[in-house]
Structure formats: C-alpha cells, structure tokens
C-alpha cells in the first residue's frame, strides 16, 4: 500500500506461524507507554521503557 507520496507504507507483517530456519526476526514494536520523566528517559537513552535494556555485565536485561 502506498501513501500519497507514492511511498510504501510500513505495516506490521503477519507473524509467520512457525519461523523458518536461519532467518532473523525482529518483533514489531507496539506503542505502549513512554517514560513520563524525560530527564530519566534521557539518562536511559530511550523514552520507550521496553527498549531500556541496560547491559548488566553478563547478559542483557530481557
């Protein structure tokens, strides 16, 4: 589907029922809530709590 500028509109792709081997998938981000405190968001480096994944020295926070 194209917009009025003739550009393809990105849309969430249907999740394949099972994932093919050797392919990488990135889940589509859904708009949840933003950090209210922009000061804190600025220090975290994101306004999206679900993208706030500090490195803990061993593995990332999921």
């Amino acid at each position, binding site marked *: 589907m194209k*917009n009025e500028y003739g550009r393809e509109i*990105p849309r969430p792709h249907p999740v394949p029922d099972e994932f093919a081997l050797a392919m990488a998938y990135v889940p589509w981000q859904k*708009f949840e809530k*933003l950090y209210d405190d*922009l000061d804190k*968001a*600025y220090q975290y480096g*994101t*306004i*999206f709590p679900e993208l706030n994944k500090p490195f803990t020295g061993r593995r990332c926070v999921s």
Partner: protein
Amino acid sequence: MNQKEQMLRDIGIVSFALVDLALYLDTHPNDCKAMEYFNHYNRIYHQLVKDFSQNYYPLMLTGAESGKEWRWGAAPLPWEGVCG
C-alpha cells in the same frame, strides 16, 4: 546550574524525545498516540526555544528576531564555552 543552563538542558532533553518519537513514527506512520506525543513535545520545544531567545539569545538564525541590534551576531559562539 543556573536558569539559563537548565533551559538549555531542557531544550536538549525535549529534542532528544522528539528524535526518539520520530524514529518510532518512521516505521509506524499511522500511530496516532505517538503523533499526539510528538505534537505535544514539539510545541513545548518551540516554546522553550522562543523563550530562550527572548530571555538570553537566539539559538537558531531563524529565531533571531532583531529589533535595533542584530541579535544573531551578538549571540555567543558555541566554542566560546557556552555549551557547558
């Protein structure tokens, strides 16, 4: 941190949030809630920049309404240690 530095910091923080929202909106162009947030913070950003220009000096050439004196030229230059 005085009022001027605080305002500069706030302008930086709001524009950071705008960039983050823009990154999301690039892939979700029809997300109304995200657009509402963008418009909200965008209004705040423009108000802050306008207030800063009136209280201190213009941050951008386009915000440099000058009366008698050419205010853009009078503004301190970034390498003159004003960025904190």
